[in-house]
């Protein structure tokens, strides 16, 4: 899957996107965040406060317990501030 990062999540992790293949045990959005946080200290820092993290699966907002299913594009970002 392609994992995209935006705003300060992108800045803290230091990359715009990564192509990753999580293990089968990573079933939900929350699982994915835990797995990503273990990849590097930057990932861990960026994802430390889960209340400040929002996730979209294939461009639709998802919740922590949403199954990843067949999502090809996962985006991780702070709460939006447009308008």
């Amino acid at each position: 899957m392609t994992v995209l990062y935006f705003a300060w999540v992108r800045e803290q992790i230091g990359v715009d996107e990564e192509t990753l293949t999580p293990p089968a045990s990573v079933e939900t959005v929350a699982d994915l965040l835990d797995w990503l946080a273990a990849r590097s200290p930057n990932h861990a820092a960026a994802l430390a406060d889960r209340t400040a993290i929002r996730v979209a699966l294939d461009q639709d907002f998802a919740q922590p317990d949403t199954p990843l299913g067949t999502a090809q594009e996962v985006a991780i970002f702070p709460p939006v501030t447009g308008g």
Partner: protein
Amino acid sequence: MQVRVQPQPFDTAAELAALSAGRADVGAIASFTGLVRADDGLTALTLEHYPGMTERQLAAIAAEAEARWPILAGTLIHRHGRLVPGDAIVLVAIASPHRATAFEACSFLMDWLKTKAPFWKAEEGRWGTRWVSAKTEDDTAASRWNKVLNP
């Protein structure tokens, strides 16, 4: 309803005029323009967005408004990129037969856009560059529209 995401400025006058041009069934046009303020000495505001999802979300929000209100024509434009104080960020304009519809749909679109469209603002000033935090009041404003569906 027309939806656009663009770095370029938009022409509010032309957008508003287009909503009622050549028709005689529009009784009300409500519009909202959001602009960059120079609060606390802000010198620039950069809007990052999620290309693809932004367009999807704006189209979904527009479709939701059209399902709720009798909208005759509408325009929703959101800019991204680096803007300076006084620049327009967003335009929402709704044409409908009556004023209550136009005001409500316009207000709804702004509230939902604030909480559902994937944009992030970074402010430049004497502090350097900082990301804007989401506001609880925006969530509250957006949630009032849910009551209509789930009373």
